[in-house]
């Protein structure tokens, strides 16, 4: 199951989608919005998605997990729009007969979501905002339109 929604995410619902009696291990990742960036207080986040392509890339990631780990039971739920601090922006649930595959596949799904899925996050501060990029390696709020790193 994959979805992109502007409604609050429900970890129990997403996790239960992958549970089956043959699966002994379920690993769930929750990405939650942090309250600070380089000492600045973040007030809230705004997520924007290129929906058609994002859904397609999420489907690709699920297929990758099947090929790489033999894992079939994957659920990904991504939130868009305004998200308050401490709320969940991403849920990835993976189930497998054994824990090793479940842990590896869940971790890999999260990495891949952050690499290839066209969704963007804007942090809003008291005195400004910035589009987060590539795991915070790129922009700093003080630099404004600073250099981007090529490729992602």
């Amino acid at each position: 199951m994959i979805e992109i929604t502007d409604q609050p995410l429900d970890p129990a619902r997403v996790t239960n989608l992958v549970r089956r009696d043959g699966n002994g291990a379920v690993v769930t990742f929750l990405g939650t919005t942090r309250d600070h960036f380089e000492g600045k207080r973040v007030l809230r986040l705004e997520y924007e998605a290129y929906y058609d392509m994002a859904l397609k890339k999420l489907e690709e990631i699920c297929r990758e997990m099947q090929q790489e780990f033999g894992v079939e039971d994957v659920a990904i739920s991504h939130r868009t729009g305004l998200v308050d601090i401490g709320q969940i922006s991403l849920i990835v649930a993976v189930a497998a007969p054994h824990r090793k595959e479940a842990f590896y596949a869940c971790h890999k799904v999260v990495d891949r979501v952050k690499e290839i899925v066209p969704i963007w996050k804007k942090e809003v501060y008291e005195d400004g905002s910035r589009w987060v990029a590539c795991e915070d390696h790129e922009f700093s709020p003080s630099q404004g339109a600073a250099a981007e790193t090529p490729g992602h």
Partner: protein
Amino acid sequence: MKIEVRFFALYRERAGCSRASLDLPAGATVADLTAEVRRRHPGLAPPEVSIVVAVNTDYAEPDTVLNERDEVCLIPPVSGG
């Protein structure tokens, strides 16, 4: 030919628009398109940064040839999750 381009997130804000219609010669590539975009919007991305382009909901190489009615989007560095 006319190519419709969509801008997202950082690029949308820097360009000041979410869509633009570009006139490109027939047989133009993704590289031709990003060159034209940079000409129109010099502040979109620094010269040393390559602008990533999606064509029909897949990442496209610079030598990809464009066609009218292609869905073309500029993809700033992603930051989902």
